[in-house]
């Protein structure tokens, strides 16, 4: 047994452009677990994911991030990626002259671009320039295909279901389950995930173990994904927090 979770976050404070956005996050994700993050716009969900990924604009003021037991708080983002952290961005930039299939090769030289693109029903985009003229839903499929090639141990998904039609939500759900090894025996699972979602559509297709509600830069509630989503739907974020979380 490992002493550490795959990811451990201790009292994390993060600022962007001098403004404090995360104010003391504590979070532990064990291997094989899939976590959902809920919360109103601007509560810090995306900031948390980008900070874990190591995007330089997000400045860690205090606290630390441990990945596989190693302190990665100040590690450059490419080293974190090579350690096994992967992220699907919400609005990634277009890259001129770089074909999607070539980017997939860069994610993992051993990956077969056609295979992962086929899984995402996205093969016809293989020769397209990355993200250039992609619709919202197409960006999601492109991001998922890249992650399928990269095979990170911790996969972080920022609203993988926004802008995606019903048919493709199923595909994305299947890919997430694959990335978090929900298609294998629980005892064999070593990979984990964090997923930001607003509407929870994606939860109909994926298996999530825990959910967290974030408000104003902290995690205010943790519990069963279904229960929390139900409360948010009926009573809003404020009501949900008051009802479920005496802490």
């Amino acid at each position, binding site marked *: 047994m490992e002493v550490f979770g795959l990811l451990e976050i201790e009292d994390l404070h993060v600022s962007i452009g001098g403004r404090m956005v995360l104010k003391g996050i504590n979070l532990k994700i064990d291997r094989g677990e899939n976590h959902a993050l809920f919360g109103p716009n601007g509560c810090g969900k995306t900031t948390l994911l980008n900070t874990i990924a190591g*995007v330089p604009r997000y400045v860690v003021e205090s606290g630390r991030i441990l990945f596989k037991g190693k302190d990665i708080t100040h590690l450059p*983002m*490419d080293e974190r*990626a090579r350690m096994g952290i*992967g992220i699907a*961005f919400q609005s990634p930039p277009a890259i*001129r002259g770089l074909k999607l299939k070539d980017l997939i090769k*860069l*994610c993992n030289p051993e990956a077969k671009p056609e295979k992962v693109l086929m899984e995402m029903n996205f093969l016809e985009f293989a020769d397209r320039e990355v993200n250039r003229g992609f619709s919202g839903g197409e960006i999601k499929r492109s991001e998922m295909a890249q992650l399928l090639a*990269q095979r990170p141990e911790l996969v972080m998904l920022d609203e993988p279901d926004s802008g995606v039609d019903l048919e493709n939500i199923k595909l994305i759900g299947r890919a997430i389950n694959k990335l978090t090894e929900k298609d294998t025996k629980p005892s064999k699972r070593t990979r984990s995930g964090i997923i930001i979602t607003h509407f929870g559509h994606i939860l109909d297709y994926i298996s999530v173990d825990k959910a967290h509600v974030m408000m104003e830069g902290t995690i205010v509630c943790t519990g069963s994904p279904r229960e929390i989503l139900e409360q948010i739907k009926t009573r809003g974020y404020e009501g949900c927090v008051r009802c479920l979380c005496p802490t």
Partner: protein
Amino acid sequence: MSDIAERAKKALGKKATYGPDVDLEKYDVEAKPHEEIQRLEEVPEDVRKAALNVGVSLEKEVGGAYIQMDQTPVVARSSTEGIEVLDIATALKKYDGLKDYWWKLVPVDQDKYTADVALHPPAGYFLRAKSGAKTIFPLKSCLYLGQTNLNQRVHNIIIAEEGSELHVITGCTTPSHVQKGLHIGVSEFFIKKGAHVSFTMIHSWGREVDVRPRTGIYMEEGATLSNNYICLTPAKTLQTYPKAILDGPGAVASFNTVLYAKEGHLDTGSEIVLRAPRCSADSITRAVSVGGEIITRGKMVGEVPDVKAHLECVGLILSEKGRIDSIPELDGRCGGLDMSHEAAVGKISELELEYLMARGLTKDQATGVIVRGFLDVEIKGLPESLRDELRKITQLQELHGGS
């Protein structure tokens, strides 16, 4: 003395409009002669290698070839019916001095460089596609400057007769041991009614080589041209400013320029004159400086209504030093025309870098990928085989970021 020689003599001291002045006296005029080569397989290894570096692979199918070592044409032959490849001295003899073409587009007294070429025995190629003829495989030519400190002078004539199609790739290069030299290349293009020409020029020079191409292009009704210029290795100074005249209705010219400057001074550009209705032209330049100085000029002149022209120059400066000076000019001389330009000079986007780093690429690798993509201009009008070779060139070069 001929009229050409007389005008040239008067221009011997005439400095060029653009680019640092080169002292012609500093260079040797006597070139060691080379022997003619009977078969492509016999081209010396170092020439073959240098040619490959500028995209001129002599192994694959070639529609015709011209190879010049220093001042000597060593190979000039065509393997395509209807396509003529001669060395220029032979062509002058065969076609009675090429009276309708010789110095008709580039003024012999334009500057001291054109004058210098005119006053010495000519070397260079004569390419002609007869009416209706088409190259299946591109013609390949290599101008090889192998003798240190030589003044290499070249005069080329390219003629695409009515309805013909001509694809040419020319690599101009020095082997790695030649650092110093001068290359002056005069090229005159005649693209007749309905003909299509793609002309791709790749330069790879030594650090101490001065380069002064002088190009004139004339296009008739319905003619199309895809003119591509690629220079990814440093030269001491390089200045070129081809001028194209679209003289027949519906002529279309497309200029693509890809520049990468580690050091040295590149002053490139073009002037395109749209002289007949329904003509259109676009000129796209991608420039990257990692310490070198790049000036890109682009001028479009619209003389009649119902013409279209677009200029685009995008530059990246990847180091602290380095300069990209983009000078677009649009000269509309009547109503009813449509001309535009777009220019941007800046750095690599942090967002793009981070995106690739999130996939595990180091900053240097990510920079390389972004720069290569940036330089990979989608060039229209090229046959697929040439496109592949071109892509290989931009992938081959070691392109580094500033850090």
